[in-house]
């Protein structure tokens, strides 16, 4: 139940990509749906998929590229093995989230928005997970964690590094 978005990804493959695109292309306004499906399968949206999406949806390459870059969620390259997202929005700030974010950066040796050199952990900011009454909050590969404190954060970081 917690593993809604698990990080098991396939390697990019054109035939598989085409299959995924075809599966969703007939819906109205399908661009985001298709991009989400590609990212869920491959962990990112490969550059090579953009013209394929454009062709399938009868759009220009520039249009699809424009949509892809507009939204914070879509990645152009794979993330690290684990993705640790820390909430940086106001309720989490009020509960000490900023100090925890700094601690995570120090422990992992990367700043928010980056991946560790060994490709193990991508550390990202997120703006509200809707857990604002049990702030500060985090998400590790789709698993939610509330009431974050130094101890819980350190455990999460250690888990992500494994």
């Amino acid at each position, binding site marked *: *139940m*917690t593993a*809604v*978005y698990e990080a098991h990804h396939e390697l990019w493959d054109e035939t598989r990509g085409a299959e995924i695109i075809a599966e969703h292309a007939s819906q*109205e*306004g*399908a*661009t*985001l*749906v298709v*991009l*989400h499906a590609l990212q869920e399968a491959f962990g990112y949206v490969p550059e090579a998929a953009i013209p394929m999406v454009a062709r399938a*949806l009868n759009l220009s390459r520039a*249009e699809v590229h*424009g*949509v892809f870059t*507009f*939204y*914070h*969620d*879509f990645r152009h390259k794979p993330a690290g093995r684990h993705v640790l997202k820390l909430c940086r*929005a*106001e*309720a*989490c*700030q*009020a*509960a*000490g989230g*900023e*100090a925890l974010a700094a601690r995570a950066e120090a422990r992992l040796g990367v700043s928010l928005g980056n991946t560790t050199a060994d490709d193990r952990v991508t550390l990202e900011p*997120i*703006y*509200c*997970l*809707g*857990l*604002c*009454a*049990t*702030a500060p*909050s985090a998400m590790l590969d*789709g698993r*939610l*964690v*509330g*009431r974050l404190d130094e101890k819980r954060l350190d455990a999460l970081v250690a888990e992500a590094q494994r």
Partner: protein
Amino acid sequence: MSMRLFVSRDAGAVAVGADEVALALQQAAAVRGVAVEIVRTGSRGLYWLEPLVEVATPHGRIAFGPVSENDVPSLLDALAGNTPHLLRLGATDEIPWLKRQTRLTFARCGVTDPRSLGDYRAHGGYKGLERALSLGSDATLAEVTASGLRGRGGAGFPTGIKWKTVAQAKSDRKFIVCNADEGDSGTFADRMIMEGDPFLVIEGMTTAAITVGATKGYIYIRSEYPHAVEAMNAAITAAKRGGYLGDKIDGSMHSFDLEVRVGAGAYVCGEETSLLESLEGRRGLVRAKPPLPAHRGLFGKPTVINNVLSFAAIPFILAEGAKAYADFGMGRSRGTMPIQLAGNVRHGGLFETAFGVTLGELVDDIGGGTATGRPVRAVQVGGPLGAYFPRGLFDTPFDYEAFAARDGLIGHGGIVVFDDSVDMRRQARFAMEFCAVESCGKCTPCRIGSTRGVETIEKIMRGERVSENLAIVEDLCNTMKFGSLCALGGFTPYPVLSALKHFREDFVPAPTTLQAAE
């Protein structure tokens, strides 16, 4: 007979261990040979008590919380012997924090199994839709209008008028869109109701559909809410199977189909026209109004777009009558508001109550002050575009007009509490930074002004030409206020200017003042 236990499956409860507690209960009970049935409900919204475990008794449910895995053996002992337990809270319905509320929208949340259509029906579900079907479109519109319901997404526009506009529009197709983008920090009511009572949202949307003559609906949920996406999808499947979606809804001549679409991490897509662009598969650029979505909305067709809580208020209004709803509230703010207490607060959670309660009651009395135990210094009301209020304004009643009169807004009803360690310069800087990151880029004041705002506040933080730079920030705010197409650029000045006005001492510190601790 087996013992019935209730543990929430709400994301907020799961984030603090509800899944582990449910599993431990199951396993420990099996070892003891005790038959238990664990129902995974939504959350009651008393988040400081999550994970909350309830047990059914002949006299109603008894609650325990916050329960950790380690508490499970002693909890089972107490349940078996009916003996006292440290975490025992007594009858759930008698917990003062819950008892003081007026739960019209959240009546079932935390009580029923959100996966069960049967449970929903057994607790009064679909009575509203049935009444709307028997009333017909005009009388239903009259009920919604008479209830005084105003959009709960932030702008407070009368829902009845919106629906009427779409009902009167002539078109081959019309759409119902539910705005479940809930991007405001400090808000989680949409998430809770989608996870805890998803059929309620479906019933509200279906009522809108049959009333205005729409046949297709979308729920646009932010990607940060995977549990809500799952819950809504499961409920849609169940409603279809039960004849409440699809053709001939509830035996009537109406058909209505519903689909979940997931956002992709853009705050501005909560703005209704940006959301429609996104649903159509484009960049979330805000559209100029007119035309209103009610005239030309999704795919150019007349569209009702409402917040989750607006749709969720509808079934009560129809089942119990407009007057039953409108009897609550003050002034032009009728009915109840699910208020969300968040941040550094002792009793954080969802508190549904009639409009009119004061900010001070909410923060000090209901919220219990800060979680850190330090004095409350500031509260931000209404998300990242909402103003910061000092204690001096705690007499403000929770009401659209009263907040506007004090240069604030109630927005989606979120209240974020800060203690006295807050540095208001940082909060002002963050408001500008957030606007810069999330701007859709269409207007210069929003796109460029916010970036300049960040730079200028940073100069103030470094003590550079403070009074000149403060004047520049105020000037920038005015430009953004009046030169922005939507409220992202237009309302970012609220948190910034309120911080400047009410917490001036943080910006122009007296020479001897110590810096607030980081």
